[in-house]
Structures are given as C-alpha cells and as structure tokens.
C-alpha cells in the first residue's frame, strides 16, 4: 500500500463517517467534500512547483532517485548548489563566453523598457481619447477597436521583413518599436480616465497649467491603480515573450530567458537539473512582482471582461 492510495482511502472513509453520523443533514459531509476537492486541486497545482525547486537543488547523482526532496538530513551529496554553479559557469559562443546572468539582465532590461514605454504612450493616447474632442476621434476609436482583432501571427512575416529592411535585426529596438503603444492598453487607460471630471482639468487650465502638465500631474496620479495593473500584465506578457525575441535576436549575448532556456532544453537533455535551475530563476521575478501586487493584478485582469 503506497502513501498516496492510503491517503485517498482515509479521505473517502472520512466522508462516509460524516455521512453516516448525520444522514438527515448531509451539509457537513458536503462541506468536507468541498474542501477535499479544493485541497486536491491545490496540491496538483503546487506539485510541479515543488518538484521544480527540489530538482534544481538536487545533486546530479540523486536526481532521479527521489520524487521530490531527499530525506533529511540533507548533505552535500544530495542537496547542493551544483546545478546553479554550472548554470552560471557560462556558455561558449562566437562572442566569447556568455554568462547566465547576462540573459537575466537582458530579460529584465527588455521587459522593463517595453513596460515603461507602453505605459507612457498608451496612457497619453488614452488621455487624448478620453478627455478631448477632435476631428477624426470617432473613426479612430472604431479603427483602434477593430485593429485589436488582427491576430499578431498575421503580422509576423511582414514585420520580420520590415525589421530586416530597416536594419534592425538583432537589436532590441526591433522588440520595442512595433509595440510602443498597443490598442488594448490605450483602451484600458481611456476607460479609467473617462470618470475623471472635466471641471478638474478646467480648474487646472485656469491656473495656467499646460495640457502636458494636466496629463502628467493631474490625470496620471488619479489612475495609479490602473497603471499598476497594466504594468503587471504587460511585464508578465513580455517577460514570457518568445516568438519575437526568437526570430529578431541572433547574437547569443542578446538573447532573453525564454529563448535561451528553450535552447538549453536541447543542449542538456539528460542533465535536466541545469535548465530547471534556470527555469526556477526565470520564474522568480514575475512571482515576486505578483505577490507584491496581487490585488491590482487580478483587478486589472478582470476589469475588461466583467463590467460589460
């Protein structure tokens, strides 16, 4: 009898006992069942994470010996930092040795830059669409919403050709320029700015504030929760971006984490402790951001869908 099957039997027995004790009121039995189901789901979700952490720290010799962690006490022979040491030892490449922290820095740089750029340009465009009346506004709005339906895959081939023609291959600009402002972000900022009263902006104007000052100092502070949510969603999306970086970047020392980890997968097939250590490092920054800003994130995710 293995422990997992024993656990299942105990859980079933618990349900039967609860059911028999109060057959007329099955409520407690069902409440119990509900928590068991939820706990099982949570365990299934957590197991791969736990396994990832264990595998990243396990010694190569015992990698396949224990399912999760080796039994306590851990020694240098079972749990150590060997995988990380070898991960950070550097890859040979045409440009000389490239160290793993280089990819981490690349990813951080690319993702942060694109998040900041998108926040600035999307909020500016959203502000114009929310708080001004100007010629061509209606068609532009319609057009923008329509362009959200163009699937990104359709534009990849011509975009690649354009990046080549512009001489931007293998530069980070090729990742930034096409996505400076995205319709989805503009729309979100416009929606959250609509509720700001016009009288407030007019009061600023009477005091002699420029339009830019109004945008930066009056409006932006008011939509700060929206900014946080937008930045998180954008950061996550771009941190995990693969298609663009994998076709636009070529030189090894410019690659981002998703691209290099996909390469490692082929390189270290049998020795998976190494790329799992890399994966563990790669999922840390978004995890830290998420747990710090969880509420804003979930609010931002659902704000577009649920209100409608």
């Amino acid at each position, binding site marked *: 009898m293995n422990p997992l*099957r024993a656990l299942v039997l105990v859980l079933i027995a618990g349900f039967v006992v609860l059911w028999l004790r109060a057959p007329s009121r099955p409520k407690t039995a069902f409440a119990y069942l*509900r928590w068991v189901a*939820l706990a099982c789901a*949570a365990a299934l*979700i957590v197991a*791969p994470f736990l*396994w*990832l952490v264990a*595998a990243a720290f396990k010694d190569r010799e015992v990698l*396949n010996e224990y*399912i999760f962690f080796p039994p306590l006490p851990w020694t240098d022979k079972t749990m150590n930092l060997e995988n990380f040491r070898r991960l950070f030892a550097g890859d040979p490449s045409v440009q000389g040795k490239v160290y793993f922290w280089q990819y981490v820095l690349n990813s951080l740089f690319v993702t942060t830059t694109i998040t900041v750029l998108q926040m600035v*340009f999307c909020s*500016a*465009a959203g502000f114009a*669409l929310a*708080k*001004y*009346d*100007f010629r061509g*506004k209606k068609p*532009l709005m319609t057009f*923008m919403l329509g*362009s959200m*339906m*163009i*699937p*990104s*895959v*359709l*534009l*990849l*081939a*011509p975009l690649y*050709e*354009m990046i080549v023609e512009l001489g931007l291959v293998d530069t980070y600009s090729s990742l930034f320029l096409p*996505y*400076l*402002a995205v319709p989805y972000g*503009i729309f979100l900022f416009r929606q959250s700015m609509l509720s700001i009263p016009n009288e407030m902006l007019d009061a600023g104007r009477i005091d002699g504030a420029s339009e*830019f000052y109004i*945008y930066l100092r009056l409006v932006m502070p008011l939509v700060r929760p929206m900014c946080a949510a937008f930045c998180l969603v954008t950061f*996550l999306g771009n941190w*995990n971006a*693969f*298609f663009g970086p994998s076709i636009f970047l070529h030189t090894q020392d410019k690659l981002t984490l998703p691209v290099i*980890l*996909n390469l490692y*997968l082929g390189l270290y*097939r049998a020795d998976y402790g190494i790329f*799992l250590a890399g994966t563990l490092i790669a*999922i840390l920054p*978004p*995890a830290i951001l998420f*747990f710090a800003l969880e509420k804003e994130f*979930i609010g931002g*995710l*659902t704000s577009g*869908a*649920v209100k*409608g």
Partner: protein
Amino acid sequence: MKQRGLAPYLFLAPYLVVLLVFTLYPLANAAVLAFQQTNGPATRAFVGFDNFRFIFSDPTFYQALKNTTIFAACSVLVQLPLSMGLALLLNEGKGRARALLRLVLFSPNLVGQIFVGVLFSVLFTARYGLVNRFLQALFGWGLEKQWLQDPALVMPAIIIAALWLYVGFNMIYFLAALQSVDKTLEEAARVDGATRLQVFWNVTLPSMRHVVVFVVVTSLIGSYQLFELPLALLSSSNGRGPDNAGLTVITYLYDVGFVTGDLGLGSAVGWVSAIIIFTLSLLQIRFSGLAEE
C-alpha cells in the same frame, strides 16, 4: 470638452506612427506577401494563389489544423468546466483560506508557456517523470509511458500541461462573475424548491453569460494561436512531435515561414489562421451583446 488645438494629436502621435508603420503597412504587406514566394526577405516572386493551393493540398497542414482543433475543443469542454467547478467551490468559501487557494490556483499563470513547456518536458519523461509516478501511485499504471514519444499521447500531454497553466486563469474570471450574480434571485429559486443544479443551470449561468461567452471565445482564440507550449515541450522535434502528432497551425507557420524561410507561404498560413480567429471574434461580438450596446 472642447477642441484644444494640437494637444490631442500630440498625445496620440506615437500611437498613430506605430499604427501606420507597424500595423497597417505590414497588414497591406501581408496581403501582398501571401501571393508571393520568398526565399528569406530578399527575393520575391509573384505566384498567385499557389501558396493557398499548396496549404490546402498539404496533409501536414490538415494534421496541424486537426491537432489545433482538438486542443481548442478540449480547452472549452474539459478546461472551462473544471475552471467553473473550482470557481463554484471557491465562491462559497470565505476568508483567508479562500484568498490563499485563489492565489495558489492562479499561480501557474505567472509561468510563461515556454517555461511550462520546459518544466513539463521533464515531468512527462518515462520512469522518473512526476506524471507517470503520480499515475502509478494512484492507479498502479506502468512507469514506461512515453508521453512525448508516443503519437497517441502527445496531444493529451499538451492538453494536461495547458490545463495546469490555464485552469486557474479562467477560474478568476468565473469567480469575479459569480460574485456579481444577484444573490436574491438564486435565493428565490431555492425557496421555490429548485435543486442546486437547477439553480446553477437556470439562474446563475444565464446571469453570467457575458463572461462565459467572453471566456469561451478568448480560449478558442488562444487555442488557435497555440505555439510556444508544444515548441518547448517537443523541442527535440522542433515542436512537431512524433509523426507531427503535436503540430499546431502556428508551429506550421513558424516552420514554413521562418525555419524554411518562405515568408510568402508563412503569410498565407497567417491569413488562414487570421480568418479562423476573426470568425471567432465576430462570434464573440454577436453573442456577447456588445453589438446591441
């Protein structure tokens, strides 16, 4: 609201430039490219409808379309009911345990498709992989299942990995929708003697239909763009899997357009998948009632 000279145009200028240069121009170019054969970005030749003729007579493309459709169907028929079930279970709970469970169930979504692919490519290995070990402990199945080498098991493997990744994501939407459902309506139905299932089917579900439609259509659209997960999961065969068992439409596009280097053919595949996605988006507008507003 008044017109204020150039100000709005200046605020919009960066977006307008991006729209013209990186959306509209490539879109027009995609239309031209689809009728050309290219060898890398340098050489182009007009070939009429040959690209489309090639796609629709290529058994590999049909295999990709079939795999992608199976994946899309499973997303809607397996993943979404599970998400809804979890949302219903969580909706009745209260307090800290509920917040913690919500966080835990959502957490895989922080991990991108590539990283999930990398992780699960090891979880699915024979003998020491976690999936096989779990199934052995629970049902006594053998440890020798070659999930990623057996053509019959490749799609189930992709679906399981995607299930782990997205079940909590969709649950968040359902949970938010469940909380905006009018409680008095459900209460009234229950007083009238409706069972829990009847209340859910006749009261709860209809009053959150906007979100349900939104989630169904977004998962369909996402499914037809599936690419990174199988690419990493099946990296030894460039995302194709044994006998192309894991090939998706976008992997096919990546293959012909960027690996082989015929951007024209790639564009044509792009149009075919765009039409599928566009149709699904129209369905969303039609059924979500956005058009009436």
